[in-house]
């Protein structure tokens, strides 16, 4: 008689790994706890003056950790403890969303194929320094290509456990 192994895993059994996981040609780790801000403004110039930083001009561009997600929407990943002025009275929204997301880092020559296992973007033609919102399977993520072989993935906290395990499952030779 053939024994059938149980393959189904319930969500409750999934664990978010703490330390780095290594596979063949790729490492998965946490990006650390940065300050995250959601920035909105119709007029980017006003927003730029409020926070005192240059803003990327085109959707998908990134300047010093500030990503242009949409025509009036920016997402900032800044060093831990950074506090941005809120610009009270002006037509801008500067909101601290540090606890909303987790940052995962995929690094190594095989990182792109791990990401491509669930992300439909043309990642190979994405230039270094570019960043965009997209999906991994059905989970919304923000992907930032920090260098040729280093990919920073921002994911909302409640999806992070699943995403971590999906990455580990896609990493050749890795065990969570």
């Amino acid at each position, binding site marked *: 008689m053939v024994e059938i192994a149980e393959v189904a895993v319930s969500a409750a059994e999934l664990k978010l790994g703490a330390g780095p996981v290594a596979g063949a040609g790729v490492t998965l780790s946490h990006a650390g706890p940065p300050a995250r801000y959601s920035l909105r403004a119709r007029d980017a110039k006003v927003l730029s003056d409020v926070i005192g930083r240059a803003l990327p001009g*085109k*959707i*998908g561009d990134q300047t010093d950790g500030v990503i242009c*997600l*949409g*025509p009036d*929407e920016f997402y900032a990943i800044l060093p831990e403890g950074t506090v941005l002025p809120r610009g009270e009275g002006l037509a801008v929204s500067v909101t601290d969303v540090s606890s909303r997301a987790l940052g995962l880092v995929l690094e190594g020559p095989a990182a792109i194929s791990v990401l491509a296992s669930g992300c*439909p*973007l043309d990642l190979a033609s994405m230039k270094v320094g570019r960043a*965009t*919102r*997209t*999906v991994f399977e059905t989970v*919304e993520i923000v992907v930032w290509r920090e260098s040729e072989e280093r990919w920073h993935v921002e994911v909302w906290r409640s999806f992070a456990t699943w995403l971590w395990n999906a990455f580990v499952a896609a990493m050749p030779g890795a065990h969570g």
Partner: protein
Amino acid sequence: MLLIHCPYCEEARPEVEFVYGGEAHIARPVDPSTYSDEQWEEFLYIRSNPRGRHHERWRHTHGCGRFFNAVRDTVTDVFETTYKAGEARK
């Protein structure tokens, strides 16, 4: 996979990032309280449903988040063009 050109991102992006938003260029009533039942029916439920060239709204939900308009052929599923919300019908 179908690629859709987002007029805001200025890139061809995978279809799964988008959500369909129904027929485009349907104006809301300027003065709703004066609308008769027939006019409400027309506004809420009556759509052109053509075989061929169709003007429709899409939203780049998992991208820039913007609504835009597209002209798609309902027979071949080919996107003829996409353009920003607020621009004239193409």
